[in-house]
């Protein structure tokens, strides 16, 4: 892999994360290398304690890696140390998050849950809401735009959380077990939406999952074991 020219999408080279020091040091990530192109959805699978969450937190600029290099959307964000001054702004503007549970803000309606991110980035309220409604339309939940999160079904909530992740048009989306609480039909619907969104917005998406239902849909899968990644070609089964 060429490490001199910044790549679009997600590029991880030689990423290492060690918790603690001395005799109590625990190596969570040893030598992680990944590349996710714009418009691509890749799976990241591995047993519990393999380092999935640590990798996601490093990519999400939540914890600092020990060594290596990370490039998101063509911008080097870590190269032995953080290369961006404001990690919170990086998360807000460059990375979309989809969680295992939707974690919508319960006191905001559906539209404002989605519009909050663009508003935080300084977009005027009206424009942020227009963008949110467009996304909700694309995800087929526009009819619940003024509902409170508690009034939505699990599938609707997850679609709203995907809309929220896309709201700032980030080049990268990190999805942590996004289909875990859903049945097969809804889980596959979520994967279909992620694929559509990846292609429409040329977003690079990493989906961390254990879900046997959706693993066959990925064209590429990264297995993580003992803090190391192994790339594998997936079935790439089409989602209908």
């Amino acid at each position, binding site marked *: 892999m060429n490490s001199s020219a910044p790549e679009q999408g997600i590029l991880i080279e030689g990423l290492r994360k060690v918790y603690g020091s001395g005799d109590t040091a625990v190596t969570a990530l040893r030598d992680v290398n990944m590349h996710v192109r714009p418009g691509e959805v890749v799976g990241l699978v591995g047993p519990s304690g393999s380092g999935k969450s640590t990798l996601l*937190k490093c990519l*999400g600029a939540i914890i600092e890696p020990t060594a290596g290099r990370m490039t998101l959307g063509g911008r080097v964000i870590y190269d032995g140390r953080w290369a961006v001054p404001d990690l919170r702004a990086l998360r807000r503007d460059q990375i979309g998050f989809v969680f295992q549970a939707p974690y919508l*803000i319960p006191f905001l309606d559906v539209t404002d849950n989605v519009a909050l991110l663009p508003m*935080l980035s300084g977009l005027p309220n009206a424009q942020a809401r227009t963008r949110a409604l467009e996304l909700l339309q694309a995800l087929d939940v526009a009819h619940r735009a003024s509902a409170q999160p508690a009034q939505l079904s699990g599938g609707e909530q997850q679609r709203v959380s995907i809309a929220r992740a896309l709201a700032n048009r980030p080049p990268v989306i990190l999805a942590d077990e996004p289909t875990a609480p859903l049945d097969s039909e809804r889980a596959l619907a979520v994967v279909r939406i992620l694929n559509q969104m990846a292609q429409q917005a040329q977003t690079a998406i990493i989906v961390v999952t254990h879900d046997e239902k959706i693993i066959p849909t990925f064209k590429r899968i990264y297995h993580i074991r003992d803090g190391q990644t192994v790339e594998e070609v997936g079935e790439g089964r089409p989602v209908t």
Partner: protein
Amino acid sequence: MISLAYRDLRHSWKRFVFTGVGLGLLIGVTLTMAGVYRGMVDDAQALLDNSGADLWVVQKDTQGPYAESSSLRDDLVHTVRGMPGVAAAANITYFTMQVRRGTQDTRAMVVGVDRQGPGGPTHLVAGRHIDRSHYEAVADIKTGFAQGDRVRIRRHEFTVVGLTRRAVSSGGDPMVFVPLKDAQEAQFLKDNEAILSDRRRLEANPVFNRPGQPGLLDAVKNLQTSSRNVNAVLVRAAPGFDHDAVAAELRRWKHVSVFTRAQMHDILVAKLIANSAKQIGMFLAILAVVSAAIVAFIIYTMTMGKLREIAVLKLIGTRDRTIAGMILQQALGLGLIGFVVGKLAATLWAPAFPKFVLLLTQDAVAGLVVTLGICVLASTLAIRVALKVDPGEAIG
């Protein structure tokens, strides 16, 4: 940018309103306590204003007539009237007792007034002033007496001929004004059995009952049954005279204690109600601490219930100041709801208090500032917790 605090408030408004009402009742008690103190000071001021006096002449080495007992001979007033700088002077008596009306009695301060000088009721809301020399009374409306009522003060019955307002003692008891002579009798005259007993004792005493001097026994008897004492002489100074100078002159020549209005105000406010003021001050301090603890606990609990949402907000890039602002605004919102409820409650229940409760706008403004200050302080703990939340908790 939308207000997260307002949205959260709107979303769980019932919890906010109920919490705010609870806090408001506490704030209402606090405002009322301040009102009780203000009422006591105002009662003292009303006592001074209603007396119409510039100087109080009382028994030497006492701080009478309100803070200590004072007794003067009633003929002193004549010489006081002749002193330079004195425009008017009048005897006055004060004593607190249960005044009976029918089968009920009311605690009141009975004031014996000389119609020729200061000390009487300044204004009437019904009826007329005392015209006759005996057995007429003017009562403060707070006694509950009505014009034409017959009230009993010791041995005699009085007709209420007029009603006045805000004529109260420093303790807040309403006043009943009666003619000076009647008040002197009521205050100083012994009951019939005691007089008869004293007479028998005098008649049996050979020092007073001398066969050669039959007038001596009668003279002593008259002295014992006379009621020629008053509690104070109220003085109105002539225009252009310095009150301190007139007081100094009176002290010099008459061997009495004389207080100016400022000195009497100091006695009433700084000394007479000093302990009550300290008591109320302690209550206010405790209530402020309790209110702060309650607000801190509520805001802390509310924040702890939102830790997951706060983690998500931080993860998606919400600034610390936005999260801190949300908690601070909620604390201030709670304080505002509490203050409005408290002010309303205090205004509604203040008239039901037996003593005067004076709710001043300046106290309300100070109360609002203190409430908001307490809310800001109380929210700091919750803000600290919120800012320490690890955004990674949203991922797991």
